[in-house]
């Protein structure tokens, strides 16, 4: 029975993520068109809704080209690593409170582990292998430069990411994500939801910036900077293998948004929802919808940033990571610890 419940949860979460990617790509294209005063794709299906489906079909039909001097096994392995990492990170994120179904209480979280946040950090730290190997195995100088940039960038920003989380961990006193969300359901001064964005603003900003860098999104998309590196690490990828990188990038975006929501924006908590007087089941559904809604808002912010800000130069990226973000997050951890000790 437990295995059945667990596999249902995995299937539902994966299906939801894959479906959201289809719409996310379209939303991104339409929104970029709006920002750049264009119309954007609106020909395939009503409002262009089937554009992504057409794109997927196109990618599936394309020939898979491997450069002659490439390392074939690693060239194949790189997109698989990327997609595997992107798919497994979501496992520990609680997407709702416990739900009552047919008399059994089901926790809306795939894996409820003791080391929640550390699991996320460990898995995301493996994502860099996909990009680095793609760059190296292609045997192309632009790919290699993209791969090297990605590993330097991700290692640099991983540190700030981990240190930013320390503030949250100190406040919650646990690494379990479900408990961290539960702590945020209280109220400050009787009315303000005790979300970590209000309690840990510095950690929120630094974590959010690091999340941009970790997902290789503008303004931190140095690994695939088109004007200088052709396509960066995926220059030599075509068809489905390119599609896997593309899919991984968008899934990483969704997961990053989910982590931001869980750690800083109260997770599935809808303030004052208990005043509505809903029954247990309806309340659970409402909480899941709240979680999804928050993710959508963060994703829209992600996309808006991408089409608003110019790209960083490489040395600016490194000095921001090491000279601004790292000291800031260290100071935040220190101040949080001191305040917690004093009270």
């Amino acid at each position: 029975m437990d295995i059945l419940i667990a596999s249902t949860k995995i299937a539902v979460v994966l299906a939801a993520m894959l479906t959201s990617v289809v719409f996310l790509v379209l939303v991104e294209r339409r929104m970029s068109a709006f920002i750049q005063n264009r119309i954007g794709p609106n020909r395939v299906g009503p409002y262009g809704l089937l554009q992504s489906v057409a794109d997927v079909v196109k990618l599936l039909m394309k020939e898979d080209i491997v450069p002659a001097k490439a390392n074939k096994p690693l060239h194949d392995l790189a997109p698989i690593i990327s997609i595997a990492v992107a798919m497994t990170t979501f496992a520990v994120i609680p997407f709702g409170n416990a739900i009552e179904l047919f008399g059994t209480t089901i926790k809306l979280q795939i894996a409820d582990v003791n080391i929640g946040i550390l699991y996320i950090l460990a898995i995301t730290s493996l994502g860099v292998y996909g990009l680095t190997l793609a760059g190296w195995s292609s045997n192309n100088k632009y790919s290699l430069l993209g791969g090297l940039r990605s590993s330097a960038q991700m290692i640099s920003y991983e540190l700030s990411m981990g240190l930013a989380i320390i503030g949250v961990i100190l406040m919650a006193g646990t690494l379990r994500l479900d408990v961290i969300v539960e702590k945020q359901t209280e109220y400050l001064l009787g009315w303000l939801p005790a979300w970590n964005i209000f309690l840990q603003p510095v950690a929120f900003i630094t974590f959010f910036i690091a999340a941009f860098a970790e997902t290789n999104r503008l303004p931190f998309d140095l690994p695939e900077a088109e004007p200088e590196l052709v396509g960066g690490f995926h220059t030599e990828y075509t068809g489905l293998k390119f599609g896997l990188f593309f899919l991984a990038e968008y899934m990483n975006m969704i997961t990053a948004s989910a982590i931001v929501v869980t750690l800083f924006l109260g997770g599935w908590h809808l303030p004052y929802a208990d005043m509505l007087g809903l029954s247990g089941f309806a309340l659970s559904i409402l909480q899941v919808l709240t979680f999804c809604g928050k993710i959508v808002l963060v994703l829209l912010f992600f996309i808006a940033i991408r089409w608003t800000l110019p790209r960083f130069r490489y040395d600016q990226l490194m000095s921001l990571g090491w000279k601004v973000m790292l000291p800031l997050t260290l100071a935040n951890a220190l101040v949080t610890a001191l305040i917690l000790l004093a009270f």
Partner: protein
Amino acid sequence: MTLQAVLFYLLAAVSIASAIMVITRRNPVTSALFLVLNFFSLGGLYLTLHAQFIAVIQILVYAGAIMVLFLFVIMLLNLGDSQSLREVISLRKLAGVGLSTAFLLEIIYILGFRVSDFPAGEVTRGLEIGTVEYIGQKLFTDYLFPFEITSILLLAAIVGAVVMAKRKLD
């Protein structure tokens, strides 16, 4: 066989096979990747022992950070020519063979003849020992002094790295 035993034999087989691949592959990138796989299976073995914290640190630090730097260096130096990596048997290698043989004999001796010496109570306590809370508690009470000494060691390493990098810049 229980699920735990199946997992143990699977992970043990993968870790031994990948360790052999690390030292037999000629291509340094392939070797490094098999080392990552080895770290992964070791992390899995720690998980079967309920040592969640050690398992995740194994992956986070070794597979996620140190091996990335290794790969980084291998790619930058472009050690593609595997023939140049062919090494001769040296005194240092013979010493290595001797040491590892001694270690193997030691393990065989302990597992073969001294298993009864292990305290039986400790094994069942595995569930509580592996948690983050327990390790943190021990680290900041019983083992505070070694912990702080380690931080000084790390500081010295950081200063050393800065000095080395600066010398090249000047």
